[in-house]
């Protein structure tokens, strides 16, 4: 089933960490397996933030194979060595969990080649790269992930998130949403639905040099949009193209450094409730997600089939 939520403050910054947590917690019944946040934070915009994992969460409910944690340190050392070889300068590093890190770094070259090199290290996956994007995903509900990664204090302009019920791939971080729009910095995607032409699209995109890290059908949306943008399409053009290029049922959100978009399939098979005012757009799979941050009486509506909308900060 899965639940998705997103919000964008226009013209101001807010505590998006706590706001998104409240929205996703309200949707917990739609997906208790894992929770993900893509927060567009008030960073200085100078350096890249790279979040990556060197292993999986093998806690209760995980479908991942248990590994000796000593391999995590070895993989981290290999990442550090690779970064040095690539000419990336690490300004600050944080160990968030035994299996995940947040690096602040300077890097000026091609992100696609950079990502390929880093992810050539066995067991390493880049969760996101961006100058404002902070992408966090892990097993557990919204409160558990917020606490584990200390997201309550994150302020920013916009955010999207996902409460996942695993249906077509494992209960693990690599299959959790949001997905980073590799190789673009600051692009993230969350999705509710099923894509039925996943393998056909994947084969085509892999032949074009795009990478898939999971077998989750939702990852296709991020890669599909990234490939469109790589060829010069705007975000909105890519999203409109996806209505015919992606087969199946879907409502998805995509966010960039300064925008937030939604798309709904032509069958309108997946839910979405939308609230829009001059200074705030909030949307989610169910009204209760919006109510969790706007308890007063407000006007909301369901976008129609085949609708694509994009808002700027």
């Amino acid at each position, binding site marked *: 089933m899965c639940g998705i939520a997103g919000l964008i403050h226009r013209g101001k910054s807010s505590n998006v960490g706590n706001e998104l947590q409240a929205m996703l917690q309200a949707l917990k019944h739609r997906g208790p397996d894992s929770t993900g946040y893509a927060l567009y934070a008030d960073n200085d915009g100078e350096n890249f933030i790279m979040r990556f994992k060197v292993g999986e969460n093998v806690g209760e409910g995980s479908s991942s194979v248990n590994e000796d944690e000593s391999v995590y340190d070895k993989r981290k050392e290999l990442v550090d060595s690779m970064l040095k070889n690539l000419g990336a300068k690490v300004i600050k590093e944080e160990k968030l969990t035994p299996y995940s890190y947040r690096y602040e770094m300077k890097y000026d070259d091609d992100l696609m080649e950079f990502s390929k090199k880093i992810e050539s290290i066995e067991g390493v996956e880049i969760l996101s790269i961006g100058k404002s994007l902070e992408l966090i995903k892990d097993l557990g509900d919204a409160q558990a992930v917020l606490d584990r990664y200390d997201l309550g204090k994150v302020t920013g302009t916009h955010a999207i998130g996902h409460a996942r019920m695993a249906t077509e791939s494992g209960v693990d971080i690599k299959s959790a949403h949001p997905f980073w729009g590799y190789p673009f910095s600051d692009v993230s995607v969350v999705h509710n639905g099923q894509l039925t032409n996943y393998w056909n699209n994947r084969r085509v995109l892999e032949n074009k040099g795009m990478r898939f890290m999971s077998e989750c059908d939702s990852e296709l949306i991020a890669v599909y949009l990234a490939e469109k943008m790589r060829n010069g399409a705007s975000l909105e053009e890519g999203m409109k193209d996806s209505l015919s290029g992606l087969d199946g049922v879907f409502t998805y959100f995509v966010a960039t450094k300064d925008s937030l978009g939604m798309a709904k399939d032509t*069958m*309108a098979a997946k839910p979405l409730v939308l609230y829009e005012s001059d200074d705030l757009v909030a949307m989610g799979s*169910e*009204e209760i997600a919006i109510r969790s941050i706007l308890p007063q009486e407000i006007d909301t509506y369901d976008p*129609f*089939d085949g609708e694509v909308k994009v808002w700027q900060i």
Partner: protein
Amino acid sequence: MANLKTTEKKTKAQSMGLHSEVLTGKTQQKFFNPDEAENFYYWGTYDVDFNKRIDLDVNDLDCKEANKKIDELMSQGYGTIVIKNPQGKHSLGVGVLNKLNLIFEGSLGYFGVGSIDGPTVRINGRVGWSCAENMMAGKVVIEKNAGSCFGAAVRGGDLICKGSVGARTGIDQKGGTIIVGGDAGAFTGFMMQRGRIIILGNVGINLGDSMYDGTIYVGGKIGSFGSDAIESPMTKSDIDWIKRKLKVAEIGENFDVSKMTKVVAGKKLWNYDALEPTEKKGAI
């Protein structure tokens, strides 16, 4: 296989596009039998007084607790219950099988007032997916917008949304009337079997797709017709009936009903087996 035979003498209802067949062969129509009255017993029905009014704040209640409380209040004779702070919660007001004035001061989530039989409901907000699903009788008025599957499988009563509604409005509708003041999404009237839908605004693609019977009236533009949905001429009976219904619904006061488009089933896709017509006639 049941035989479907067209009757020669048309009734007023048939002239409006409703069913025009009688069932013969193995099929038998079932009628209410007083001897089987016990089979029609509803648990939880009470004598209530509409003048006995109470407010119920459900802010700190979940849907089960709230619905149980509504039942308790009806058992105490309250005939007008005002629900405060519904906050988009799911499944509020479901299964009310009683006469009752039920007023929601706010918005509902999914499955609001589903499977009701008899109450008059006013919702001063919006509703999520599947509002009034399987409604048997009564009247539901929504002041704002509604989500998808609005009035799914309704069997009777009036379901009115003053705003716009999502996709698949009136899916599997088996009776009653659905009235929408604004626009409606794709697949409106999908597989509907009986009853009528009035949309004053525009509708999306695949209107009336695979409908078996029933009638859809559209005031605005139609995205496209679904399989086996065809246009039919508006009659004076149609216009008079819609005007009366809109007056009852308190919307579309100055709406030009005569320019609406009437959509009915082409009836080329029917594929009943021997049993389905029996179920159909018994259920509707």
